[in-house]
């Protein structure tokens, strides 16, 4: 067995095996017993062959299985076409199974199983099971087909330039979206099921030769360790897999964009696609990768860089701005340019609260607005954001609760926070912002620095599947190789290697690329 087979070897089924017997009625009875009170399961018994001597039964779950497929290519073939060929039942009795499998069912994917439990499992995943009398095996016909959302643009991660495709709720479609972008046989998709009751399908995606096997081993081991009744969303997996649950920072990236997953795979990372959710997971995740957007790579060198830097500045702003405002106005007004200091002092004249409370009120109401904006239906949500922001801010200033500068600070912070591509990452910073404000209120600038040091310690301590979270910022590489895709993004033709902290084997990304005009000169 190869490395991957061993790694992904399914765990042994601990349930008692219930063999399929030769009696159709008995088998049906057992299935019905297990699927007792499951009214969505359809049983269809029928007879085939000359003299209707051979009894068949198909079982499928309504809504999960493609009824058309079952009707057209299973039942029709068996009941009508099979009769046309006029098989002599007596002579071919022993071969009926092969005949049906090879000659009658015009369905591409067939499996045979011997266990009633598996029969039930397959029915519940949407397959159609064909039971044949006097035969101790069941045929599983791949007939999964349920109504699903069509592939559409992901709403949470919009881009100007980039593919408009987003993942949907069906895992199979999602893997196909990824596969379409990597037509390499080395791109592997390994499937497993997690959840005692939900039996959710999970696909682990990676590219052989590029993937870091140590990380892959860790991921699979942790996935196998999960023993939960149900997985509703990839967030469940994320929380059960991550290194440090106390951290405010996501250690696993989630995305709706196939090309983001593909990009990560090319870097030697691992993708996890979970059924029933459009959010795929990327492992390992670093601080840096959470601030990258797919667009950075699509845009040209200068523009991509400018946007990237802007985003870093925005993150720092969203974290520090309110706390610095508090520290500067109530502790070190000497830092503010005189004219501005005098203006702030004047505009705060008559505000009854200390600046911490002032900032807290505004930040808190902003968070309220944000949450309300999400919960309310689309058009109203957008409106309440604008109306709330404008009206509330203006009214608060006029009522003398906050100073006018505070409104600017809060607005700027909010805008800065929304530039972060990853929602869960941004929310971590939003949370920290309040902590920073508290520190600033007690110890001024020293407090802010102290909070920063503690955050930094935490970030430095944090690892995502063995990869330090702040990589590559905190490993020195004198040649700056790994810095090519961080705060700055090297031009595409200069990014010849995959990031070294992940990819181990095949490191070359790009063979020496010479621009055309350079060629001429040579």
């Amino acid at each position, binding site marked *: 067995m190869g490395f991957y087979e061993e790694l992904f070897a399914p765990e042994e089924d601990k349930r008692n095996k219930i063999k399929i017997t030769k009696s159709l009625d008995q088998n049906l009875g057992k299935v019905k017993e297990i699927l007792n009170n499951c009214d969505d399961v359809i049983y269809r018994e029928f007879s085939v062959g000359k003299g209707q001597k051979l009894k068949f039964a198909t079982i499928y779950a309504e809504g999960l299985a493609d009824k058309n497929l079952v009707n057209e290519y299973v039942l029709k073939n068996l009941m009508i076409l099979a009769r046309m060929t006029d098989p002599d039942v007596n002579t071919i009795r022993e071969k009926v199974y092969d005949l049906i499998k090879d000659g009658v069912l015009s369905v591409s994917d067939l499996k045979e199983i011997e266990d009633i439990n598996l029969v039930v499992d397959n029915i519940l995943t949407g397959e159609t099971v064909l039971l044949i009398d006097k035969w101790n095996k069941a045929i599983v016909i791949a007939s999964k087909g349920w109504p699903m959302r069509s592939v559409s643009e992901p709403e949470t991660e919009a881009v100007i330039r980039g593919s408009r495709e987003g993942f949907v709720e069906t895992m199979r479609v999602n893997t196909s979206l990824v596969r379409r972008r990597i037509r390499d046989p080395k791109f592997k998709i390994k499937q497993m099921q997690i959840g005692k009751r939900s039996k959710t399908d999970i696909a682990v995606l990676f590219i052989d030769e590029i993937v870091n096997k140590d990380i892959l081993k860790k991921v699979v081991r942790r996935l196998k360790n999960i023993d939960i009744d149900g997985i509703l969303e990839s967030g469940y997996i994320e929380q059960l897999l991550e290194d440090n649950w106390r951290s405010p920072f996501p250690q696993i990236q989630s995305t709706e964009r196939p090309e983001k997953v593909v990009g990560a795979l090319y870097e030697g990372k691992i993708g996890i696609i979970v059924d029933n959710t459009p959010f795929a997971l990327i492992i390992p995740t670093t601080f840096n990768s959470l601030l990258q957007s797919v667009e950075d790579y699509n845009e040209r060198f200068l523009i991509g860089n400018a946007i990237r830097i802007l985003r870093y500045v925005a993150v720092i702003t969203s974290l520090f701005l309110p706390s610095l405002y508090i520290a500067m106005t*109530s502790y070190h*007004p000497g830092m503010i340019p*005189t004219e501005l*200091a005098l*203006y*702030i*002092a*004047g505009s705060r*004249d008559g505000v009854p609260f200390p600046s911490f409370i002032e900032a807290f009120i505004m930040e808190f109401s902003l968070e309220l607005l944000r949450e309300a904006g999400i919960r309310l239906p689309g058009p109203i949500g957008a409106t309440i954001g604008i109306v709330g922001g404008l009206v509330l801010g203006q009214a608060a200033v006029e009522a003398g609760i906050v100073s006018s500068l505070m409104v600017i600070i809060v607005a700027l912070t909010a805008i800065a926070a929304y530039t972060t591509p990853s929602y869960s990452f941004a929310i971590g910073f939003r949370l920290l912002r309040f902590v920073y404000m508290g520190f600033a209120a007690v110890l001024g600038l020293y407090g802010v620095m102290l909070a920063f040091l503690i955050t930094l310690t935490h970030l430095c301590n944090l690892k995502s599947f063995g990869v330090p979270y702040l990589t590559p910022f905190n490993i020195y590489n004198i040649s700056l190789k790994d810095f090519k895709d961080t705060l700055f993004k090297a031009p595409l033709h200069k990014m010849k290697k995959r990031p070294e902290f992940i990819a181990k084997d095949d490191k070359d990304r790009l063979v020496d690329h010479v621009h055309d005009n350079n060629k001429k000169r040579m």
Partner: protein
Amino acid sequence: MRKILSLFLLCIIPLFFSGCWDNIEIDERAFITGMGFDKYEEKEKKGEEEKETQVSNLKRYILTVTYPNVAMIAQKAEGDPSYIYSTVCASPSDGKQQINLRNNKNFYLNHSKVAIIGAELARDEKMMREILDVIQRSIYINRKIHIFITPQKAQEILTMDTGKNMDMGLFLEELIEKEITSPRRPETSFDAIITNLRESNASMFPRIAKGEKEVTTGGAAVLKGYKLVGWLDPIETRDVNILKGRGKIADYTIKIDKLYIVVEQMNLRSKMKAYEGEDKRINIDFEVEAEGILLQHYYGVPGEPFDSSYIEKINKVTEKQLTNEFLQVVEKIQKQYKTDIFKVGEYLRKFEPKTWEKVKNNWDEIYPETKVNIDVKMHVRRVGIEG
């Protein structure tokens, strides 16, 4: 264990929030922009300083502070542009305490812009050194603070109306930090002044004076050691600045052929050299090379200024006139005030250490006797657009 720890933390947190030791909201501060220090002079002052037991009741200074009306700046309220407090006190910090008793805002010096020292105080070395130390030692007062000495009382200057509905401290700061700095005023920042004072034991403080309706800032007070020894008028100050190479832009009124013409200096290179001459006397050489532009001539004399030989004549006359003017100023400083504001001693120490070894012990006596040579070169390059 964990429970105890969390309980402990829970107890600690309120302790921190009861703190906020340094927290003073920005609107509760009085941003002192201008400070004035005067000597307090009573008619019968005899024996006052000997009363050691009543040190705290000493009356030595008059401290005046001004801070702007911030509500007016934020356009929230009308009223006077600034609030001025003045008090008689034993020391500046005693004055601060007294003002705190009368003011509703917290005294805050980090944005102080100007400190004005009365001439009477500047003549008293002891008090002058006290004030300089207060400014130097303070954590709050910026080293870039502008320092002035006024022949009148600092209090009078600070209480004047600027006529622009502005706080005096802010007004003076804007006046000094204009893009075009006037050469008729020495360096104003405390930092520059104090470095000169330390290195050469002499320095020029800018002079500020009360006019009819407004304040005026030309001229300089000359300090030797830590004591005021005399004044320079604005033109003399300009000349000193040119000799030191600081006044890049200046204009000279020249009398040539019974006409008054104006030459504006656009560029300046000035060099000072000191050395021991053959007669064992210390020589000080000033080499000034300036470029200029003819700013004003006499209307209706076409052609003349556009003549190279005439320009050469202007150069010659200007050079002569300036040399005389400079010599007079240097003589005043050297002979009358006996102060080394050209940093001759410092120059000798750095570049002629051997000579310095010889003269350093009685430099004060040698300096007034040194020989001064001034060489001015003027090049008028342009004459404007009238031929």
